[in-house]
């Protein structure tokens, strides 16, 4: 061996690179998901409750400001009045359950029944999108929004290997006709 006096031989360097690669792989595929899952289990609740509370205060604020709800699903305003201009108003939100909620949901779907954790996320998304429509209408200067429709669609699917929409991403769209 000509390199006998060196610190590391070629074989040892190779071994070291191999070990580092294994460590990185272990971290990426085992340690990180585990930590993220634990984080999700503990903190997701606080994170979601914060937005839920904000939504409630915003809803109250709009109610105080207008005295009534400015959204309606009827095709004409009641009572009827003169309309000068109409236009489309729309708002959207994309929501997804946390990893912990997805895990709870997958366990629940073995036995069937009401999945409470998903309920919460979907209810939040739907209320939030309607609140945004209210605020959007006020911001654009519409007096009222008629014929409101709320649609739900699954977006950003990864159609690969039979695992469809692994993240459970949902989009809510609310739209209606603003009148003034």
């Amino acid at each position, binding site marked *: 061996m000509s390199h006998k006096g060196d610190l590391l031989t070629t074989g040892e360097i190779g071994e070291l690179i191999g070990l580092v690669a294994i460590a990185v792989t272990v971290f990426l595929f085992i340690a990180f998901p585990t930590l*993220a*899952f634990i*984080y*999700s289990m503990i*903190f*997701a609740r606080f*994170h*979601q409750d914060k*937005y839920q509370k904000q939504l409630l205060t915003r809803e109250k604020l709009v109610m105080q400001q207008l005295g009534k709800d400015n959204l309606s699903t009827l*095709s*004409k*305003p009641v009572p009827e009045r*003169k*309309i*000068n*201009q*109409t*236009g*489309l108003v*729309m*708002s*959207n*939100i*994309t*929501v*997804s*359950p*946390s*990893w912990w*909620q997805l895990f709870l949901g997958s366990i629940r779907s073995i036995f069937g029944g009401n999945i409470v954790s998903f309920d919460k*996320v979907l209810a*939040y*998304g739907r209320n*939030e999108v309607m609140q945004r429509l209210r605020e959007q209408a006020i911001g654009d200067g519409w007096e009222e929004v*008629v*014929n409101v*429709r709320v*649609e739900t*669609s*699954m*977006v*950003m*699917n*990864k*159609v690969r290997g039979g695992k469809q929409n692994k*993240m459970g*991403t949902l*989009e809510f*769209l609310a*739209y*209606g*006709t603003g*009148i003034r």
Partner: protein
Amino acid sequence: METIMTSNTETIPGFTINQSLGIVTGSTVRAKHIGKDILAGLKNIVGGELKAYTELLMEARTEALGRMMMDASQRGANAVVNVRFATSSVAGGAAELFAYGTGVVVTQG
């Protein structure tokens, strides 16, 4: 050219429809940005809103609506009634946003 009025009701309240010019459509296909996708994936850990996707979809939908209005103005319509939206997922994480309605000529009264 005045702005095209849009409505998702069958008539435009306060206006009379004189002529129907047929269906007008607008669509766009958007794929997500990989950087935003990774950030959204991290956000997904705690759940709740994924702002990157919300903005992307709204932007795309506005564009689809704009194309629909352009189609309507090319046909000589001054309003679009009964506007509907459709969203579908295309393979590879892309989404197609589609807006359609009926182009009409309206007069006030």
